[in-house]
């Protein structure tokens, strides 16, 4: 082979080498890029893995929470079931209790009817023989009085006064028992006018020398007739129990206090021992004998019941031989708001 050929071949070989070198460099550059890519992907993978671990942990936690919730729900369900049963029981109990209330109401109604017919027979049947006792004793006195000596007349007088007393007892007892059933009509009552009326009635039936002082008494909301009963009782008592004093003085006062109207009736009479104050308002309870002061022992019980029915209170203060004061309170109602009529 000749030189030219040789150099030609070398030239070609060189070109080839240069090309191959270039290719190598290209590959190397590509590899470098691929390497970088790999490194990046590796980093990404690691990141993902870390994230997955966190996500897994989260899942585990959520699972635990779910289980907890499920357990709680189970308990709540049981509780609900229990409450349902309790409700059923309660409903049954209420139905039962309601039946009992109905039954009781029926019995109370029956008893009330019994009491009413009892009152009727008391008023009618017991009074008829009393009237006869009194009437015939009176005839005996009128027609045969001249045949009786002083002792005979005294005994006859005893028969009559006791028959009369029993009549009063029956009347008072009837009044007392009726009060429980009567409805109360709430109206504005001028207590000054009511006191005047009561006093003029008392003056017609009783002779007394008491000085009675009152002025500007506060008006009340209540049942006129029932309040009249209260004032009649309290004033008659004050007059009666001060009647043995030389100068009996009776005072009526009124004041407003803590949403209540308070009325006070005081006298300077025989008073009473506070030891027995609890007995004052009981039926047939008396702190004085009939010989000292006559009475049936029902008056203050009537007052107590009337005031109680008016949502008020009654109380007494006294000292032996130094007079007594009886107080009663009534709610200071506004007549405009008197929609609640007490039954």
């Amino acid at each position: 082979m000749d030189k030219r050929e040789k150099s030609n071949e070398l030239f070609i070989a060189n070109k080839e080498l240069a090309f191959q070198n270039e290719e190598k460099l290209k590959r190397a550059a590509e590899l470098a890029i691929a390497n970088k890519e790999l490194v990046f992907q590796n980093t990404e993978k690691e990141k993902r893995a870390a994230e997955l671990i966190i996500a897994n942990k989260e899942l585990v936690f959520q699972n635990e929470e779910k289980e907890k919730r499920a357990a709680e729900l189970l308990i709540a369900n049981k509780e609900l079931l229990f409450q349902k049963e309790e409700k059923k029981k309660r409903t049954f109990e209420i139905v039962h209790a309601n039946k009992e209330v109905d039954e009781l109401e029926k019995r109370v109604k029956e008893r009330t009817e019994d009491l009413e017919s009892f009152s009727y027979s008391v008023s009618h049947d017991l009074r008829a023989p009393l009237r006869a006792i009194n009437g015939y004793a009176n005839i005996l006195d009128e027609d045969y009085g001249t045949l009786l000596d002083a002792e005979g007349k005294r005994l006859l007088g005893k028969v009559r006064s006791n028959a009369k007393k029993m009549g009063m007892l029956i009347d008072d007892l009837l009044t007392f028992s009726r009060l429980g059933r009567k409805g109360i009509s709430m109206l504005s009552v001028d207590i000054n006018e009511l006191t005047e009326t009561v006093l003029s009635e008392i003056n017609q039936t009783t002779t007394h020398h008491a000085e009675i002082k009152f002025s500007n008494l506060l008006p009340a909301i209540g049942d006129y007739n029932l309040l009249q009963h209260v004032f009649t009782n309290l004033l008659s008592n004050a007059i009666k129990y001060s009647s043995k004093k030389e100068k009996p003085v009776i005072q009526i006062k009124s004041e407003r206090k803590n949403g209540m109207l308070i009325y006070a009736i005081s006298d300077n009479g025989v008073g009473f021992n506070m030891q027995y104050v609890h007995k004052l308002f009981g039926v047939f309870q008396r702190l004085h004998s009939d010989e000292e002061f006559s009475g049936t022992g029902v008056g203050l019980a009537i007052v107590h019941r009337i005031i109680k029915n008016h949502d008020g209170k009654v109380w007494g203060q006294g000292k032996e031989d130094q007079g007594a004061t009886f107080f009663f309170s009534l709610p200071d109602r506004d007549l405009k708001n008197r929609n609640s009529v007490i039954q």
Partner: protein
Amino acid sequence: MENNTVDILLIHDNMNDAELTLRALRKGNINYSFTHLKNGVEGLEFLFGTGKFEGRNTSNKPKVILLDLKMQKVDGLQVLTQIKASELTKSIPVVVLTSSKEHPDIDRAYALGANSYIVKPVEFNEFSAVVADLGIYWLLKDQTRV
């Protein structure tokens, strides 16, 4: 006696009350005549000339009737109803006698046409006075009208 003038007719089935009432009436009104009938049936028979009083001259009317409300068999309200339902008797004043002024029968008696009522108290003197006064009141009222 059945055809004699009767000023005051008492219809009452309690003999004690009746005796005491008549005594109270007589005490104050000597000039008047009184008749007591022992129960509601007798009272009606007397007023309408039936039964025991068959043939009585019924135009001979009492001037006032005192009528007890509580009587056996035919009670005061029933008697009152019949008195006020009949042309013959409805103008006769009727005063009802009762044991208690609170009694619901009083309202019913007024509704049926009773003219007055007397509460029979235990105290006889009180009773006498009231009976005598009321008896007289209705007697006089009747006379002035005639």
